């Protein structure tokens, strides 16, 4: 996973709540067996509308998505995170994320930042009025900065450490392999098994 320390970029203000992962990447894209090539599927249905914010020429190259509440609800598809990253987004800001989406994003180095809806409103107003306005997400300081805005955000220390160092979860877990083996040895024998080994 690519390490995340800080990122500065222009924004896409997405004034919609309850953006489910079916909207982020429709199901027919899920047939792919790779982690890349999902950029054209991102918000596919909405992008058919020329006025959709992602289609506006002034938003080209933007890398910070500022979304409404309950972003990433629904299906667990990690393809939603890959699609956002393949398109060029480095971070998503919202007042509330769905749990599974949030977990998936942090595992892939897409930083999801929770801010109060009033701050999100201010970021929308700023970046709608001035598409060149930049937003900085500083993970070291756990702060979002933009013109006239300094907002702290929370992220637990462990998740922050993993992100800032781009650490692989599986390698970290396998450092505790002995604990897993100990647990396995003590499991009750009535627990189900799919095959006899």
């Amino acid at each position: 996973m690519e390490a995340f320390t800080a990122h500065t970029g222009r924004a896409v203000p997405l004034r919609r709540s309850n953006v489910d992962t079916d909207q982020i990447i429709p199901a027919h894209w899920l047939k792919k067996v790779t982690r890349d090539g999902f950029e054209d599927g991102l918000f596919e249905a909405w992008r058919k509308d020329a006025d959709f914010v992602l289609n506006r020429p002034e938003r080209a190259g933007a890398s910070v998505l500022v979304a409404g509440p309950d972003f990433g609800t629904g299906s667990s598809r990690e393809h939603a995170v890959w699609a956002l990253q393949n398109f060029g987004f480095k971070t998503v800001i919202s007042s509330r994320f769905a749990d599974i989406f949030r977990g998936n994003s942090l595992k892939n180095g897409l930083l999801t930042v929770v801010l109060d809806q009033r701050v999100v409103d201010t970021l929308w107003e700023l970046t709608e009025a001035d598409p060149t306005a930049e937003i900085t997400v500083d993970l070291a300081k756990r702060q979002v900065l933009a013109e006239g805005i300094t907002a702290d955000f929370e992220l637990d220390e462990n998740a922050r450490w993993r992100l800032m160092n781009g650490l692989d979860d599986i390698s970290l877990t396998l450092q505790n392999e002995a604990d897993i083996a100990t647990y396995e040895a003590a499991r009750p024998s009535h627990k189900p098994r799919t095959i006899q080994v």
Partner: protein
Amino acid sequence: MGRTLAEKVWDDHVVRRAEGEPDLLFIDLHLLHEVTSPQAFDGLRQAGRPVRRLDLTIATEDHNTPTLDIDKPIADPVSRVQLETLRKNCADFGVRLHPLGDVEQGVVHVVGPQLGLTQPGTTVVCGDSHTSTHGAFGALAFGIGTSQVEHVLATQTLPLARPKTMAITVEGELPATVTAKDLILAIIARIGTGGGQGYILEYRGPAIEKLSMEARMTICNMSIEAGARAGMIAPDRTTFDYLQGRDHAPVGEEWDAAVAYWKTLRTDDDAVFDAEVVIDATELAPFVTWGTNPGQGAPLSADVPDPASYEDASERHAAEKALEYMGLTAGQRLRDIRVDTVFVGSCTNGRIEDLRNAASILDGRKVADGVRMLVVPGSVRVALQAVEEGLDKVFTAAGAEWRHAGCSMCLGMNPDQLAPGERSASTSNRNFEGRQGKGGRTHLVSPQVAAATAVLGHLASPADLSDALTSAGVR
């Protein structure tokens, strides 16, 4: 202080707990399907890692599989590649697989319970958000992303922060006309699509205790639609009776030991939930959705709501967008909404009891002219049981299409899709824009409402049928 059901199951699976770290949780059962696993197996290959516990892992094919002509090669080349990838991955790594054509194939969340693999007090994960279904057995079950699928394959554990707990207490008794689907839709409308975010839900109370296992699975299945990764119901005699004798249920002394443990899996009287919601079952009625998220629902007897009636600006905006997408007008009667397609199936309502319920309404009646009805059993076993009971004949005699098992039109990854602008009454779980096909419009309903809707051609409950019969002289 006492502990909740969720806390008990959680505590029993902690492999490692350390200050400042998420708990490392052991996973008892890992279910795989073709859509969210290929990149995870690739990751294992790149790192040269094996699957740690093949005996706790099982795969089936469901999302992509066709429900017609299953004996022929899969027409869509991209779907075919994905299914072939799963078959190769399972063969290479030694994972038990039930592919299309196998008698144990079906929707992953129907297969686990019917094999008896889903048991009380287990942790169950799958790269699918509807893994919450298995919570009906008092299992802690939740959907995970592909990175986590790889993590479980490699380590049989997951590092997880412990969620809060929420009690959803359903007091009283459900009226005879009200189903588990109506109840869960009403719960989601009440707490909202984000209401359960960060919580494990526990459904409890007299109305829940009376429910069958199938109905409990319908309830837990849609926990994710309220934002909760997991929903649970304490195991009881109903649970034990369902499990006893199934392929992977313990036997003999093991059964006794298991039941003794399972009986401890109840929230202690002095346990405290972080949040509690109380629902009065006696006030409920058949429930349908009118919008584009599962929280946008109302009793069937209501009208399409006026977005202006929402105080919250974001909800108002969402309702406006939803009505526009759904082609509905505020104030229109929900019962006047005409549908083109009726879908009975999915991990929400594709089990034998659901098919019996739909068939009991359709028996001796006809699907309305111009309406297409698809009945897709949740698994091959469900299909075989339905055939044994003659339900397939009831469906086909009514003019419905009896299909092979799979996810089908719930998410339209296979050819079973709505055309743009088409409207469905669907027993599935999500009414998102385009969920059942680009431009398709979905109303979530129970199997009974689906069947009555198929007969009348507009959203309806079985109670509407008797009136229609008298006035139109049908039958």
